[in-house]
């Protein structure tokens, strides 16, 4: 990553949200496409060594994206995003869910609301992703899925303290 690009990641336990801000060295239309076209999403959405594979995508309000994360052993985790609100090249909102391969909702899994905003900064585009959960339990369940340890943690006042520790 170009070290001049801003990157900010924070977990807000008081509001059950995760916020990620990241700049990309490309103009806005291209970055917008990268987030909203399945053929491009498939190339980067999964963290390595996993790969994203789109089954169906219909990027419009009321549409959806149905895709699998495919692991190195061929294991599959299926996800679904309902697109609720789209302002072209500015913002889209969607409801994220875990589903069966046929698209049936896994109701006892956490759901999260995604709010993705794009800001034109000329050569660079800033993307801000806000992910919010209905309650803290779902946020923590999501965190727990990737990482077993350390669950009851986190931030609030400590957020302010940590940056000063790094110096």
């Amino acid at each position: 990553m170009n070290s001049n690009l801003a990157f900010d990641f924070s977990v807000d336990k008081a509001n059950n949200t995760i916020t990620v801000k990241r700049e990309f060295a490309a103009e806005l239309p291209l970055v917008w496409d990268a987030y909203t076209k399945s053929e491009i999403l498939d190339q980067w959405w999964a963290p390595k060594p996993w790969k994203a594979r789109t089954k169906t995508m219909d990027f419009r309000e009321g549409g959806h994206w149905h895709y699998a994360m495919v692991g190195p052993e061929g294991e599959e985790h299926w996800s679904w995003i309902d697109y609720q609100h789209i302002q072209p090249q500015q913002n889209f909102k969607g409801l994220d869910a875990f589903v069966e391969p046929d698209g049936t909702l896994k109701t006892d899994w956490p759901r999260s609301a995604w709010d993705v905003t794009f800001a034109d900064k000329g050569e660079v585009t800033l993307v801000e992703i806000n992910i919010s959960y209905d309650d803290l339990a779902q946020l923590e369940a999501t965190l727990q899925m990737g990482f077993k340890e350390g669950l009851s943690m986190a931030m609030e006042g400590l957020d302010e303290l940590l940056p000063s520790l790094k110096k």
Partner: protein
Amino acid sequence: MRRDIFQAIADPTRRAIILLIASQAMTPNAIAEHFDTTRQAISKHLHILVECELVRQDHQGREIYYRLELTKMKEIDQWLDQFRKLWESRFNELDNVLATLKNDRK
């Protein structure tokens, strides 16, 4: 029972104590004055913080001062860093894809 940094910060009163003594060591009485709860409750929280090894007791004359082991807090940062890495790897991949797309359009 093994205690860790995440138990230390799991409780809001303990988080408040941590912030309180972050900048200066304090006696248990001075700490308790900042809270509405009983001294016993504060004492119990301090005990847990000591077990978590986030807080150290220093004896100065007849007084006990509690001070933070700030380096211990880095464990929280390291834990959070895993999520940062997840996003970073995903975004780095997007950087590559964008660079390729830019070239294709030229």
